[in-house]
């Protein structure tokens, strides 16, 4: 395992999340978030979690980005002038964020260097299919219920009102 490459990927992940939050235009924020999801998928793949990585890539970098871009296109379109007008106020809000995030990261790095993280015990089961279908069946049922609730919520929210 190339440790330095993982570190670079994690830093890119933090940077893209920062960009997603700080970008003035919402469309760039959505793109930054999709990039963060793609980088996270690579990190997950390198951490021996390929199934979760594929789902992260297809669902988070694909579907959720499509949802965000749909929402942005459904709300009022901002002209370039309007974006430029609020750029200063927007950047003033977020100008301290990179510094605070860097200070937090360095402080945590110093603390964890001095005192190692607690090491949890291994359960031994490494096959995600066994975990899903045998150990965590209730979770699976909960996920199906949640998806149905989500679909029902969308139907209710976008239901056309009858004319009275």
């Amino acid at each position: 395992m190339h440790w330095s490459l993982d570190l670079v990927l994690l830093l890119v992940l933090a940077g893209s999340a920062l960009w997603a939050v700080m970008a003035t235009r919402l469309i760039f924020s959505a793109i930054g978030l999709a990039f963060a999801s793609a980088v996270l998928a690579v990190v997950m793949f390198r951490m021996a979690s390929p199934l979760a990585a594929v789902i992260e890539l297809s669902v988070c970098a694909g579907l959720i980005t499509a949802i965000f871009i749909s929402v942005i296109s459904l709300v009022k379109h901002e002209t370039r002038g309007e974006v430029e007008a609020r750029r200063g106020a927007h950047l003033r809000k977020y100008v301290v964020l990179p510094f605070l995030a860097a200070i937090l990261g360095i402080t945590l790095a110093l603390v964890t260097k001095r005192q190692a993280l607690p090491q949890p015990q291994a359960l031994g089961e490494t096959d995600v299919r066994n975990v899903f279908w045998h150990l965590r069946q209730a979770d699976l049922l909960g996920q199906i219920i949640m998806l149905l609730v989500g679909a029902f919520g969308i139907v209710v929210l976008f239901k056309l009102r009858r004319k009275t």
Partner: protein
Amino acid sequence: MSGNEVGLLSAAGIIAVVLLFIGFYCILVTRNLIRILIGLEVLSKAITLAIVAVGYATHNVGLSQSLAITVIIIEVFVVAVAAGIVINLYRHHESLDTKNIENLKG
């Protein structure tokens, strides 16, 4: 755990905390409903990263993957419903500013 795994777990843990901070900061500072959703997404990225890193470092990748998939599914559900709510609020108030929805009943 080997030295590499401990180092990777520490680095992933630090980045996860930094992502949590970025997400919370975004949610607290902004008044734009879509940007609040983006902050929420960053928070869920932090959780997913932490789960996968701990699973990798402790050789529990099966359990960690299943939990990460559960988090991703919940994330999709939350974003889809929240996006619907945001669009409906926009249609009603012609604005994405949270100040405009402070006068809700209840």
